[in-house]
């Protein structure tokens, strides 16, 4: 991904920036060379042009002067050869005239136009004169018109005079122009130098500024990255990102670094969360282990405490059979109920039982206690038959009843009463064991509650705690366990979810 991005952004790379600087240098050098070349070419061409104009004009002037010598010769000495020479040389003047017009082309100045036209006039006049001279020489003496010849000759010489004056004016004008152009060229030569120096200076400055900018960008980027890495080293969890907007590899690197830091931070966070969860799980496992340890411990205690009853159970069965053989019915019943009670304890200890069986077991226990204490204690069962299907751990109610008997009404000589209740309340089933015994102080109740919740404390109320812990494990903590007590009353209230099975 980053490779692709880098390739895509190769145009913005540092090397590209450096290359741009080189191109800039080359460009400035090219402009300087162009300025020098064009400037010198222009100045040279201007000089050549001016010289060419002067040369062409001078050539025309020489040709006119030359042809006029033949005109003079032809007129003054009436020589045929001069007339022939004139005719031949006239073409040279026309050619020179053509050259002047050609060389000047569109920059044809008024003075030059006037000169060329005056030369044309001269040629027309001299041509007419030469022709007239030819007729004059061949004509009869009486028909010779000398005055008209003289006038024509004077005209040609006047025109030649105008040409000379015009040439003089044009030369003067041209020389002034040449001088002006030379001065202008000198001025522009100086301007070209100034432009060259200015361009060189400006170009150098631009290059320096440009490279300084590039180097500053690199230095700043490195500084930012170093600073950022330092911050990250100190605090991996900081949310700040490094921002580099140079648009080169540093920008890409910063972006990659930011992404990498984000990923690392996310992973660290994830690891920490997992660690926390694991720690909690570990704690829960330890807790469970402790609970199960406690449970097994209590079960072991129970088993140990039932070893003798089991032996007694066998013995009692044997005695019960003997009592029946001897017709001692009451003793036989007593033995039988005791045996049933012991059997329940022995067989169902580690099993889930129905509330109905639990109640029957409590009734067996109550029968035995009533036989023992006769009318000293009274037991009342208020059990909703519809609750009999509730499944719960074995030996929940009997220890509660035994507690009430031992700690509640034991000290009473008569009218000690214990109520065993089971009833529905909304979608829950409530079990209650109440006595009208001595009751407990509030402080004692508080200590009892703390003892029930703290598995590390062990004391005389281990049976109660055993009941509470087994119910919590069985009903997955969905157990309400309340102790209500005052003088003359102690009520153990247990609310359980309705988990009936038939």
């Amino acid at each position, binding site marked *: 991904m980053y490779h692709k991005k880098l390739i895509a952004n190769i145009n913005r790379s540092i090397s590209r920036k450096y290359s*741009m600087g080189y191109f*800039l240098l080359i*460009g400035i050098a090219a*402009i300087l060379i*162009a*300025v020098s070349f*064009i*400037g010198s070419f*222009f100045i040279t061409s*201007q000089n050549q042009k001016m010289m060419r104009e002067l040369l062409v004009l001078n050539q025309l002037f020489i040709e006119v002067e030359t042809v006029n010598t033949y005109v003079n010769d032809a007129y003054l000495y009436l020589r045929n050869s001069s007339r022939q020479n004139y005719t031949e040389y006239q073409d040279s003047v026309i050619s020179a005239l053509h050259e002047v*017009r050609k060389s000047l082309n*569109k*920059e*044809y*100045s*008024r003075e030059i*136009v*006037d*000169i060329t*036209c*005056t030369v*044309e*006039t*001269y040629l027309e006049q001299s041509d007419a004169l030469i022709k007239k001279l030819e007729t004059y020489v061949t004509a009869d003496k009486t028909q010779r018109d000398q005055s008209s010849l003289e006038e024509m000759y004077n005209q040609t010489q*006047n*025109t030649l005079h*105008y040409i000379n*004056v*015009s040439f003089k004016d044009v030369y003067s004008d041209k020389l002034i*122009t040449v001088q002006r*152009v030379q001065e*202008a*060229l000198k001025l*522009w030569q100086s*301007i070209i130098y100034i*432009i060259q120096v200015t*361009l060189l200076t*400006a170009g150098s400055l*631009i290059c320096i500024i*440009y490279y300084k*900018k590039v180097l500053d960008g690199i230095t700043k980027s490195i500084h930012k990255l170093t600073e950022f890495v330092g911050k990250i080293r100190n605090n991996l969890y900081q949310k700040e990102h490094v921002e580099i907007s140079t648009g080169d590899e540093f920008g890409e690197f910063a972006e990659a670094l930011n992404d990498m830091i984000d990923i690392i931070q996310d992973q660290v966070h994830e690891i920490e969360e997992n660690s926390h969860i694991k720690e909690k799980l570990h704690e829960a496992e330890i807790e469970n282990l402790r609970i199960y340890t406690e449970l097994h411990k209590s079960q072991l205690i129970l088993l140990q405490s039932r070893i003798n009853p089991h032996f007694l159970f066998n013995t009692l069965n044997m005695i019960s059979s003997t009592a029946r053989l001897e017709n001692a019915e009451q003793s036989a019943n007593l033995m039988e109920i005791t045996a049933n009670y012991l059997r329940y304890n022995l067989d169902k200890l580690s099993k889930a039982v129905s509330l109905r069986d639990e109640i029957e077991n409590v009734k067996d226990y109550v029968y035995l206690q009533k036989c023992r204490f006769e009318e000293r204690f009274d037991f009342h069962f208020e059990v909703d038959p519809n609750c009999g299907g509730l499944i719960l751990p074995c030996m929940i109610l009997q220890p509660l009843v035994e507690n009430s008997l031992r700690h509640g009404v034991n000290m009473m000589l008569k009218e000690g009463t214990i109520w065993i209740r089971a009833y529905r309340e909304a979608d829950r089933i409530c079990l209650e064991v109440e006595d009208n015994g001595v009751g407990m102080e509030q402080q004692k109740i508080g200590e009892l509650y703390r003892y029930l919740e703290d598995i590390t404390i062990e004391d005389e109320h281990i049976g109660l705690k055993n009941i509470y812990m087994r119910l919590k494990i069985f009903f997955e903590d969905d157990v309400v366990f309340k102790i209500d007590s005052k003088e003359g009353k102690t009520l153990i209230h247990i609310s359980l979810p309705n988990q009936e099975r038939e």
Partner: protein
Amino acid sequence: MKKVIQWTVILSLVLVAGFFGVVLKATLFDREDGVRDKLRITAIMPHTDQGYWSSVTEGILAAEKDYSDQVNVRVELPQLNYNVKQMTELVNRAVAAKVNAIIVQGIENEAYLAALQKAAEAGIQVIFVDTDIEDFVPHLYVGTNNLETGIMLGEKLAAVTQGKAKVAILSGEENYPNLEQRVTGLKKISAQYPDIKFLRLDYDNYDALTVMNKYNLIQEENPEIDTLICVEGTGGQTLGSFYAENPGEFSHILAFDYSEGTIQGIRTGMLDGIVIQDTHEMGYRAVEEALNLFLNGGYSANCIYTDVKWVTSSDLDEEGHYVP
């Protein structure tokens, strides 16, 4: 940064291109171009020393500037002012150069007129400014209607003198047609105002010393004369320049033509007023008409009269200058 560099390079190139393409060209190639196809006019002025002919020349050059793509004018001057022989040479030279038109002042000189006639025969337009040669064919005159201007000056005379004056006229060269026409027009005012009497006519020959001599002579010989009229420019210019204030020998002095001297004369009260001819328009229209014939085959008219204006102190601005 990249954009800045790009723009700097582009700007540098544009500057360099502009430097060579525009500035150098404008400086070194500053020459007339394409004159071969233009109408070549030679204007032969008698001189440009005073405001009158320099103004005509300015008019000619203004027209050349306005029609620069069609007209090229070359102004020629004799080495000496009003040297007709040299002016004739200049005409002949223009004829030899086969120019398209010659603008000249009409001067009654045989050789001068013969050279002009030769030019006309060679197909060159001959245009008279300021002074007309009426019988020259083909004929075009651009300038003041001098007779009408003389009549206007007479009306101004009547106005400033309330129809009662003893007048002396100071003219230029004797028998010079323009001046004679002005005097003729001026004198017509007597028909309307019998109390305006023209007592004498003198000529100054266009020089200041003669003007001052005549000025004093008139007062000495005719002390009853209370009004002086200079129908030629030198008179008003001399009197206006010489006197810082009106010495009071003449109650009224009326003069001709715009010059620093005549304006100063109005400012000081030496002169009541001057007739100003639109000389700039003369030069301008002469070029326009030459072009008109070249392009359209004919002139607007054979005589094109330019404006004249009567200027008094009320026409000067707060600083005493005249702004046309």
